[in-house]
């Protein structure tokens, strides 16, 4: 019912007609090429259409219907003994004919004048690695071009098979460092005894884990003991300081009392105020006073050395050496300041191993420029030419290096 509804294939009436059809198309194309026709596109589409029809004539709807749907118990007998024997003898005959074919001699001998030139292909180890780098695809022998294309009988349009987006692909990208995600060859350290007992897994000796645990514990204990010691020391020091302070206080108190006993003869005029004002001026003119000291010092030096230096120069020198009043933490200016600070006790390293580099791209690839430099430095070649950069021809300039003088006796 269904196949009868299909439109009859336009051109095909049988195998012979198919061939004729093909030839016809070819001839048509040739003709049009000769004529230089302008409607090339049309001919191509025509040709495609005819190919489609050709294929359609080869496809039957029955190809898609599973035979067992109607009856599960269709009998499909194994081939009979006779047919087996017949095929065997036929194939054997063919193969023997193939094998007994007179082989062309491997060595070809050509004569040039009196000389005989023998050409032979050397025997090669088939397991020897190819000398040529093979890229991706393995060579697939050419297929017979004359054959009609095979019809694809699956429906490639429907279904969820869609192209993977770049985003999805990115998600699935596994960095090389984590390639153990799927062990491609399934290799491991041997964990199984191959005595064939089966289901017998070798127990890993617990000694290793015991040892590491014990070491860890000892380390921890030592740390705690050290901490306690430090704490005790600190407490002792604090106590000492406190004792001193109280002693001083007491002395002061005693003195005051003695003075009071003598009577309030001498007033202490605005002592506190004075001190305060002094302190405040001190902080504001600290730089200034430091400068004065420096100026005095410079003057002294000049006098001692007997040099006549003007006041202006001395002032200038003092100004130049003056440090700015701004206070800053020098670590802020240092590279990796934050990472060099230890955050907690367990932190073993100042910074993670691969923090700066992008791991995947760089660390497993050789930087040849760096390598060259390294080799040079290892060779200890100190001649000037080695310092000339290869690419640019410029000389690497740096501070002049002094080498230790070698004594004559040493040399000899």
């Amino acid at each position, binding site marked *: 019912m269904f196949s009868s509804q299909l439109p009859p294939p336009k051109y095909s009436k049988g195998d012979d007609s198919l061939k004729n059809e093909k030839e016809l198309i070819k001839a048509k194309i040739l003709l049009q090429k000769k004529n230089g026709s302008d409607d090339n596109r049309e001919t191509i589409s025509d040709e495609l259409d005819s190919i489609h029809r050709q294929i359609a004539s080869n496809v039957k709807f029955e190809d898609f219907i599973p035979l067992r749907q109607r009856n599960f118990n269709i009998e499909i007998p194994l081939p009979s003994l006779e047919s087996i024997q017949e095929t065997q003898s036929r194939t054997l005959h*063919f193969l023997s004919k193939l094998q007994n074919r007179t082989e062309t001699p491997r060595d070809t001998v050509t004569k040039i004048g009196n000389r005989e030139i023998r050409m032979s292909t050397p025997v090669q180890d088939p397991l020897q690695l190819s000398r040529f780098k093979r890229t991706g695809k393995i060579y*697939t022998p050419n297929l017979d071009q004359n054959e009609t294309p095979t019809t694809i009988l699956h429906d490639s349009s429907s279904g969820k098979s869609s192209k993977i987006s770049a985003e999805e692909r990115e998600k699935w990208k596994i960095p090389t460092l984590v390639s153990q995600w799927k062990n491609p060859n399934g290799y491991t350290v041997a964990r199984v005894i191959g005595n064939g007992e089966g289901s017998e897994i070798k127990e890993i000796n617990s000694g290793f884990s015991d040892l590491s645990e014990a070491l860890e514990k000892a380390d921890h204990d030592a740390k705690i003991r050290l901490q306690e010691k430090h704490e005790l020391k600190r407490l002792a020091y604090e106590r000492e300081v406190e004792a001193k302070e109280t002693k001083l206080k007491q002395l002061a108190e005693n003195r005051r009392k003695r003075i009071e006993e003598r009577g309030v003869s001498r007033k202490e005029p605005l002592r506190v105020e004075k001190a305060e004002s002094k302190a405040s001026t001190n902080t504001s003119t600290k730089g200034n006073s430091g400068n004065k000291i420096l100026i005095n010092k410079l003057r002294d030096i000049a006098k001692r050395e007997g040099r006549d230096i003007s006041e202006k120069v001395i002032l200038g020198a003092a100004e130049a050496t003056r440090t700015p009043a701004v206070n800053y933490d020098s670590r802020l200016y240092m590279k990796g300041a934050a990472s060099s600070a230890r955050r907690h006790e367990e932190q073993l390293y100042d910074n993670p191993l691969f923090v700066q580099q992008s791991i995947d791209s760089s660390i497993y690839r050789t930087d040849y420029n760096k390598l060259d430099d390294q080799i040079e430095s290892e060779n200890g070649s100190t001649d000037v030419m080695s310092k000339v950069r290869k690419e640019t021809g410029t000389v690497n300039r740096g501070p002049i290096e002094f080498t230790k003088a070698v004594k004559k006796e040493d040399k000899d």
Partner: protein
Amino acid sequence: MATLPTHLQQELNDHKATLKNFNTATEDILQKNMATSKSLAVRETSAASFDNHSALERRRQLFMQKPKWHASWKLHTVINGHLGWVRCVATDCVSNKWFVTGSNDTTIKVWDMSTNKLKLTLAGHAMGVRGLAVSKRHPYMFSASEDKLVKCWDLEKNAAIRDYYGHHSGVHTVAIHPTLDLIASAGRDSVVKLWDIRTKEAVVTLVGHKGPINKVYCLPVDPQIVSCSTDATVILWDIIAGKGMKTLTHHKRNVRDLALHPNEFSFASACTDDIRSWRLPEGSLLTNFASQETGIINTLSINEDGVLFAGSDNGAMSFYDYKSGHLYQSTMTRATKGSLESEKGILTSTFDKSGFTLITGETDKSIKIWKQSVESNPTDDPGLPWNPMSSSQRF
């Protein structure tokens, strides 16, 4: 030529639509039929006219039949011993006393079938062993390896006696011709080579696949060679003509395995989410198995009882009734102690000669032996329900 011609495709699509529309209607009819005239329906189907293939009619015919019941399968033994993936397994098809496994650790190991103890380790390959075949007619075993070699092992001397050189790349599979002294091997160089066992000469090279070949089988009559490939095709070869008799293009993805039926002249092939069986010698579609969510299928095996086993790359095991394509049991393998979560895939499988034992080789480096439970019966253990969806009618 990736698609069907447009007019044909449209025709098919139209019928798909009708199938959807009449889904409910069919079921109504079915229920009535089931209740009233079951015997009548069966008689009808047996005498079904072959020229009538409307979608509805086909669906009705499918519903009228019941798949055969099979007992469920249980894990029996786990054997450890290999240091790499177990890539191939073959049984002794003469005495059924031992089986042999090949692994990525380059060794081949022979195990006792009854005690599951190691009998022998054969070393000789330089890279992983991908294919094994034990001969019925000679005391020989053949192994294919990624080191481009096929080796012939003498089972009396327990040593490799011949090497077959000639493949350009790794060899994935090897098969022995049932009547002639020939072996067929194929691999990454996408050709099937036929070797004379004695002279070690590559007699015939069959060219036609466009991608690495995954499996090759030899049959006693034409087509004498069947092969499946990553180019999503199965080719039935004619040795004498030196080319393919028929190319099966129903699969969409890499066809990873083939399995021959031991009692019937048919075979099954599997790609991702798709198992189909084919009638030989002409290669017409027999059954569409209910295999939509199986994932990547690495291996297929069929026993005499009509059980088809499909092992997936994610460790899923599916057992089908071969004739109806009904999935009656679906389980997962158990990863052995100490293996990773991702190491849970089935790479190879085979039934033993009796068909009651299933041997699987897995990515967790273990060999697992599965047995059909003896005491289970259809009432206690009916298996998954028979619910033929339109999957069997897909294209």
